[in-house]
């Protein structure tokens, strides 16, 4: 394979970026180890794209340092940084053919015509677009354009590959396939990648590490499993996996689990050592099971709404502690609206977060 990689890590040291009085990124530090895919996840306006653009050198840094491959690149211009970026809009040059697009970066690096033709062809083969060399970008489908954008970035053999919401312009089905392709390519080439998205499912699917950002700061970082199972606060719990957040009070603690009083019902939840007495219980929608016989111990609820979605049912439940949202894969035993039931909670789908 002629597309080598010279992966280097990325490090942010106390980086701040201000636009006038607005702080877009506030004193953020993190590292991305070489060869891993790190996702910046968060709602729009949280500073994730600004962070990515600071890595690319498209945005200047107000304070702090950016390191790529151990070298301080804070003052280097985008042109001089060894990174490549896949843009949300793909940013394919509409007046150049596919092969011209892919070899553009090589040409700018002063590589000979023969070498760059070889490399560009290899890059296109890698993304499965061999044979499309002489098309214009406008003659390709959305997914193909996306692949060209990836190939164009890959052939430069960058130390870091940046993705700015690369899949947001694709339809749901294609998005799934492209994200798997990107992940496969990244792993097989051992590329260091920084990936920006606001789609939590996409982030869970592709990442080695996820950095959740909110309001210009890092809310939590960790592996996908860490974030889903042990969210640090109510924002992360809600943003990843959409938890029901219910106030509770710890009544007793055992090893690695705690008994929590929720509206008079005692449930067992994996403990967080640092949690105070008054907590919020984050209950994943799929951790709620409805017992219409009302024999089991649990929270009494009334089914307000019941939606059939083919593979599963969605319920809106009313209880004394507030409204709950539940997902149940038991489609055969669907519960009709208006039914009284008992909600039982599965320990693995719950977490404690601070109020």
């Amino acid at each position: 394979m002629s597309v080598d990689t010279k992966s280097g890590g990325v490090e942010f040291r106390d980086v701040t970026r201000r636009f006038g009085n607005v702080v877009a990124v506030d004193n953020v530090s993190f590292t991305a180890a070489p060869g891993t895919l790190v996702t910046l996840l968060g709602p729009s306006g949280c500073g994730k794209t600004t962070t990515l653009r600071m890595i690319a050198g498209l945005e200047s840094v107000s304070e702090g340092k950016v390191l790529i491959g151990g070298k301080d690149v804070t003052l280097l211009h985008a042109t001089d940084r060894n990174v490549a970026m896949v843009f949300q809009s793909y940013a394919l040059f509409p007046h150049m053919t596919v092969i011209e697009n892919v070899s553009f970066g090589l040409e700018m690096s002063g590589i000979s015509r023969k070498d760059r033709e070889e490399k560009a062809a290899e890059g296109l083969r890698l993304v499965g677009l061999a044979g499309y060399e002489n098309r214009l970008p406008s003659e390709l489908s959305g997914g193909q354009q996306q692949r060209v954008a990836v190939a164009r970035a890959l052939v430069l053999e960058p130390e870091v590959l940046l993705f700015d919401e690369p899949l947001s312009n694709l339809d749901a089905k294609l998005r799934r396939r492209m994200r798997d392709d990107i992940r496969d390519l990244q792993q097989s080439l051992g590329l260091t990648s920084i990936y920006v998205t606001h789609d939590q499912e996409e982030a869970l699917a592709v990442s080695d590490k996820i950095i959740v950002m909110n309001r210009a700061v890092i809310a939590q970082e960790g592996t996908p499993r860490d974030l889903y199972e042990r969210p640090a606060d109510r924002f992360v719990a809600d943003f990843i996996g959409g938890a029901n957040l219910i106030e509770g009070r710890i009544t007793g603690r055992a090893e690695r689990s705690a008994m929590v009083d929720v509206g008079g019902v005692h449930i067992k939840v994996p403990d967080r050592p640092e949690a105070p007495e008054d907590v919020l219980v984050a209950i994943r929608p799929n951790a709620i099971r409805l017992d219409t016989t009302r024999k089991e111990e649990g929270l009494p609820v009334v089914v307000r709404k019941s939606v059939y979605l083919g593979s599963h049912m969605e319920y809106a439940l009313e209880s004394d502690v507030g409204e709950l949202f539940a997902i149940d894969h038991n489609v055969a035993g669907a519960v009709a609206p208006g039914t009284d039931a008992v909600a039982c909670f599965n320990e693995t789908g719950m977490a404690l977060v601070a109020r």
Partner: protein
Amino acid sequence: MRRSQWFWLAAGWIGFALLPWYDTPLSDDRTWSLPALFAGLFGSAPWLLPLLVPLLLPIVYLTKDVHARATSLTAAGIIGIAYMILQGFAFGLNGWSWTFLESLLGSTDGFQNGFGYGANVTLFSFLFMLTEGLAARGWMKGDRFVTGAIGLVIGTILFFVFLPVSTILTNAAIPDGEQSALVSFFHRMTDQDIWSLSCISENRRCGVFWNSLRLGVLTGAITTLLGLAFALVATRTNFPFKRGLRLLTVLPIITPPFVISLAIILLFGRNGTVTNFFADAFDVAPSRWIYGLPGILITQALAFTPIAFLVLIGVVQGIAPSMEEASHTLRANRWQTFKYVTWPLLRPGLANAFLIGFIESLADFGNPLVLGGNYDVLSTKIFFAVVGSQNDPGRAGALAIVLLMLCVGAFYVQRRWLGKKSYQTLTGKGDSGRPSELPRGLKYVCYATAIPWAIFTLILYTMIMFGGFVKNWGRDNSFSLDHFAANFGLEWTDFGLLWSGRAWDSLFTTLEIAAISAPLTAGMGLLTAYLLVRQRFAGQAGFEFITMLSFAIPGTVIGVSYILAFNTPPLEITGTGIILVLCFIYRNMPVSIRAGVAAMSQIDKSLDECAMTLGATSAQTVRRVVLPLLRPAIVAALVYSFVRAITSVSAVIFLVSARYDLATSYIVGRVENGEYGLAIAYSATLIVIMAAAITLIQFAVGERKVSRRTSSDAVKQEVPA
């Protein structure tokens, strides 16, 4: 040091030590053809030697670290520019330029000519040393191309727009006889000629300010109403000849502004067709009623209605049909919908069209010159203050200030106040629906105004096209080619082809000057547009305002300011072709800026960023990505600059010389001599040439767009300006 830094330092030295510093010598003294270094050391120009300081500074710091080198370059640039400008202005053809220097330093018999090659090369190299230094210090993320471009645009605009305009100010304050500068300035600015209101109380003439204001307001109102009628007919009725109406919008672009006056004279002048008809039929004695306010008003309304139409058609089309459809579903009938929905949405657009008409009317020079009679307006008054027997630069300066304030004031109102008030209801999302039809009564009103006016325009243009083929209009209406032969005669003599026509010289000069200035204008305009749209830097809002401001400066003001500013060293270019080219560049630049801004805003910014992350420098990005996508805008800017250079009259009439005469000023000269036949024939020829050029290029550009559409699925970014 970087290669580019070496380059500019070397250029500075070449200009200083190798090229002749001064412009063509007036005296025989050998000093004047010497490079600055020798003129300074051995000749009579020792004041040039201090320039060694900035030229040596970067060399001294050559061995120091990057930061110190950058600082030395920056300092060298600033010192060099500052000293050259100070020195250049302090010393004129006859010793000190400023009297206080004489009292300070004693009298001198030294003098200097204007800047020559050496001085210009060195001045530019100082400018780029400064921008290189700033880039190396990290300004604009260290981008040398961008800092250089900013330096170039700001530097030349300051020199070729602001310096001349401020010269007017100083001229208005030239001491008048015994009076001090301030008193004379005050006297000139408060002259009865400008401000008198005696036409209200007594039967005397009013001040020229009030004349201009009245004309501007009337023209603004009339063109707005006519433009609205045309816009409504074109978009909200099923009028069968809509395409013909669109043609109307091309006319003012290719018509030299005063040509309509000529046609009006042929119709309503003492020997005009209509005048003769009435004289024969009703025994009305021919009079000169057309010379004065009525004539100017009619011609300006004819000339500027298409502009208002162009503005208002955009406004009317910008109202989303869904607004009116919503109103209909809410039980409003056509009239109520128009009154309560359409009209209020139109109002900011109407105000805008009014202000544009107002500014155009104030800036117009050709029509008042030809048809003004005793009705003086500011622009013609300025002309006669400079060119006529008065030759009073102080008075011209004062009048120019008044005119400038009026125009810039209106421009400011238009930009700041209306800019925020416009209602943009069309969002760009698929907003289907049919615009509602006009209420019946209103429709007939629109028809009744627009159609006769369109026919009138048509008649006038027919007269312009064919008036030149008549022996002597009004007296002897027989067919003749005399006028064309006199203008464009060709004779075959023993020495080969002889261009015997009187107009050839000016026609060739015009085409040459226009062809030289068009690419420069387009280049500067697009470069400025790139900086405005694609770069962010401190003071950008001010930068934008400065660049657009030259749009509001009337041509007469520019013309006067150029001869006042560039008549003496350091830049002595009056009477050359260079001053015409420079005048066109900085007068027409705003149009290319607009074309560039419009086109560049359509190109996704991530394309530039992507090129950067792929390792392209910003100069490479511009060349490889931005320019190819801008091609339609470039062509538009080129054509427009070319055509405007040909039709312009107000500014260049001050700047032409015997060697460099332009078509428009030649025609105005014929009109002043009463040679209407020659003037009309020449105008018709110009219009045909420009129409041909525009059609040709529109065809080429349009063709390209179509082929792209059919071959591909429409490249969205590529919407021509």
